[in-house]
């Protein structure tokens, strides 16, 4: 892998070109921009379809008017879920988790493997788009067999997943280069968090890749006749819940690694940020088991143990709430905020990047609380597969991840293109509209879920009488769902007007630097060619202990095996084989 010292100043220093690496620096920026455009392009399509699902729940069936482009609600839902949940998040994450560490370390990433990562994911996305838009694979984003989509769907998903793991070797190589120049120092925070995220994802991806490569790919082309649906379901969720952390952790990186500085302060605790990421990695894999509380076939005692395992993942989220809240308070007080909540009002709310991230963090409070419901066996029984669940993950992924990624573009697109944001007001409007729409939508969904309204169901296609007999009691929350969907639609287009408007028409200006936050008491710059840290700014014992990422990875694998072997064991001893069905 070709690693060179970056030709660009990094961290909070001036972002000016240096030496002979300006060409490589431009290539880095172009690649990052390509990841952003590909990811947000997917979001544009996925989010355009999204409100149709929201209207569906209010009994408004818009799908017949969309033929022949879209045949059914289920086709639309498949496209919405795959593009938003996989393609958008994977592209943006695989860009950020290489670009930010490269800037922080002052090391140029291996451009060839980064391009290969993009290429594999783009090829996978092309296959998926073909398979979804020709209505051959309306299997939703969970693609549970024995419902059977086309080979393009499963091979596309395989390529996308493999591509998304490729930043790990790039990160390891950059970190090794930096460590050779800075022996004995701990990995800088953003790079550490990026590395832990990718390590977690590569381990988690084993489940989906095993399901795809060993079962669904050969099944889809006729090499094997039948698959075991519940084993495949288990493998899916080995990846399926950790994927939530693959969505969330890049947003956390922005909150910990950048937001404090953007808000005008510092990160109050570097070690707690590291601890959060270490815990997220260790807990992420076992926690997927709670998706199978409603599945038959494994012991009741084990279900109880899995509740405890699932609850454990609340810990890093609560640490984040405290550390992030305190960092924002520090910034607010530096800006003159006084009293109990004066610091909150004093935050730079006129900065759309800050506003969007703080609002995302506020919505996450609801997301975290409802996650506790999903993770409790008896509570889950009431809401399992109801629209309570998408209500929950829209205030986690749909707010924390999507809003934070949008917030990042508000500084990053000017940084990458040297063009000023076309409209800060419209960007702010997009953030507030998204916040309002998501809260309406999520509260409505979670409320309606308590009435037993199922998720992933084309209920607007039911006869009027049947719709009201089944879901009439939930008419108020379902109306909120529809209203939230429409507001989110407006937010989406406000955002894209700013995003594409800036890339295409923004006025030329000096590119702003990457706003890396400094931890209280920590060094101001981590770049490979920066001066050594001042005396006394050394890492804490906790940070040093957490530096052993391979030990943490080993613990994660042991924890995952401990959670999954008791579930898979009975399934493997009673293998059932189901033929494929195409039922749409």
């Amino acid at each position, binding site marked *: 892998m070709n690693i060179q010292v970056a030709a660009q100043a990094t961290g909070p220093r001036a972002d000016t070109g240096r030496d002979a690496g300006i060409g490589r620096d431009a290539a880095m920026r172009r690649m990052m921009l390509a990841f952003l455009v590909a990811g947000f392009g997917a979001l544009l399509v996925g989010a355009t379809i999204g409100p149709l699902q929201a209207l569906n729940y209010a009994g408004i069936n818009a799908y017949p008017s969309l033929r022949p482009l879209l045949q059914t609600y289920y086709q639309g839902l498949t496209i919405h879920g795959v593009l938003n949940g996989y393609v958008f998040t994977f592209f943006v994450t695989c860009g950020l988790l290489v670009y930010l560490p490269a800037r922080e370390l002052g090391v140029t990433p291996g451009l060839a493997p980064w391009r290969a990562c993009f290429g594999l994911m783009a090829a996978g996305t092309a296959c998926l788009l073909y398979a979804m838009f020709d209505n051959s694979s309306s299997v939703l984003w969970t693609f549970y067999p024995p*419902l059977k989509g086309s080979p393009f769907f499963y091979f596309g998903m395989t390529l996308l997943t493999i591509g998304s793991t490729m930043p790990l070797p790039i990160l390891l190589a950059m970190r090794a280069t930096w460590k050779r120049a800075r022996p004995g120092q701990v990995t800088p925070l953003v790079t550490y968090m990026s590395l832990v995220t990718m390590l977690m994802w590569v381990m988690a991806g084993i489940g989906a890749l095993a399901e795809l490569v060993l079962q669904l790919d050969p099944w889809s082309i006729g090499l094997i006749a039948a698959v075991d649906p519940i084993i495949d*379901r288990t493998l899916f969720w080995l990846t399926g819940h950790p994927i939530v952390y693959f969505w969330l952790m890049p947003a956390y990186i922005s909150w910990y690694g950048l937001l404090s500085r953007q808000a005008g302060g510092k990160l109050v605790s570097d*070690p707690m940020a590291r601890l959060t990421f270490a815990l997220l990695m260790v807990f992420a894999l076992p926690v997927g088991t709670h998706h199978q509380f409603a599945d038959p076939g494994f012991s009741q005692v084990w279900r109880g143990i899995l509740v405890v395992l699932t609850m454990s993942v609340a810990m890093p989220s609560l640490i984040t709430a405290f550390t992030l809240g305190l960092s924002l308070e520090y910034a607010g007080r530096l800006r003159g905020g006084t009293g109990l909540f004066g610091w909150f009002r004093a935050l730079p709310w006129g900065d759309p990047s800050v506003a969007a991230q703080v609002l995302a963090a506020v919505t996450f409070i609801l997301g975290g609380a409802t996650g506790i419901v999903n993770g409790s066996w008896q509570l*889950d029984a009431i809401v399992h597969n109801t629209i309570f669940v998408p209500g929950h993950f829209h205030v986690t992924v749909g707010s924390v991840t999507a809003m934070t990624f949008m917030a990042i573009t508000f500084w990053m697109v000017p940084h990458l293109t040297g063009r000023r944001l076309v409209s800060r007001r419209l960007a702010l409007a997009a953030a507030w509209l998204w916040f309002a729409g998501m809260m309406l939508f999520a509260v409505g969904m979670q409320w309606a879920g308590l009435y037993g309204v*199922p998720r992933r*169901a084309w209920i607007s296609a039911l006869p009027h009488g049947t719709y009201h007999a089944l879901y009439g009691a939930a008419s108020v929350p379902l109306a909120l769902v529809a209203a939230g969907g429409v507001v989110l639609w407006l937010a989406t287009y406000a955002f894209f007007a700013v995003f594409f408007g800036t890339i295409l028409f923004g006025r030329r200006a000096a590119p702003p630097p990457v706003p890396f936050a400094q931890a209280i008491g920590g060094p101001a710059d981590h770049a490979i060619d920066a001066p050594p840290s001042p005396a006394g700014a050394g890492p804490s014992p906790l940070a040093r202990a957490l530096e052993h990422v391979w030990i943490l990875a080993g613990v994660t694998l042991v924890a995952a095996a401990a959670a999954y072997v008791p579930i898979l064991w009975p399934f493997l001893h009673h293998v059932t084989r189901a033929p494929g069905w195409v*039922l749409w």
Partner: protein
Amino acid sequence: MSEEQGMTPFEAAFHASAERHERVWTFCVIVMLALLTIGTMFYVVRDYGLVSATGAFYTDPADPAREAAFADGKIVRTGPNAYAVYVVGRAWHWSPDVIRVPAGAEITFYVTSADVLHGFEIQGTAVNLTAVPGVVGSVKYTFRRPGVYHIICNEYCGMLHHAMVARIVVTPSQAVTTGTPS
């Protein structure tokens, strides 16, 4: 802590205050989680009833005996106040499509699928079980109030998934009628 060296006085004071508040925060979070858990469990049991999953057994999807066990959606009295109900989901209906059981009786539902994954959800209760081809899952439940409850499919199973609906008629008396074949 080593990172406290090199801080400004304001930073050091803020940092010390943060450590104190971290303990308060952790305590408050534990209390809040405990109250939330106890409160919601109380709410669940009061409004939805207790559910216990009793396990699963496996069948060969090609075995004719399995088909016979589920074909007519049997309802069997297994004790003075206990019934077993055999339910099979297939795209896109439940068999039986009407189940009559008395209030107050312990009902064990045995649920499987004849084709793809289905979700066996009884609205207004905590009965929620994935129906898997080749696997018979079971769940025990007691309906406390007479009335009509809807069974819906909550696991996407194809084009008419949303229309996969059946009914449970909970009668006030011990008199129970058999299910109606679909």
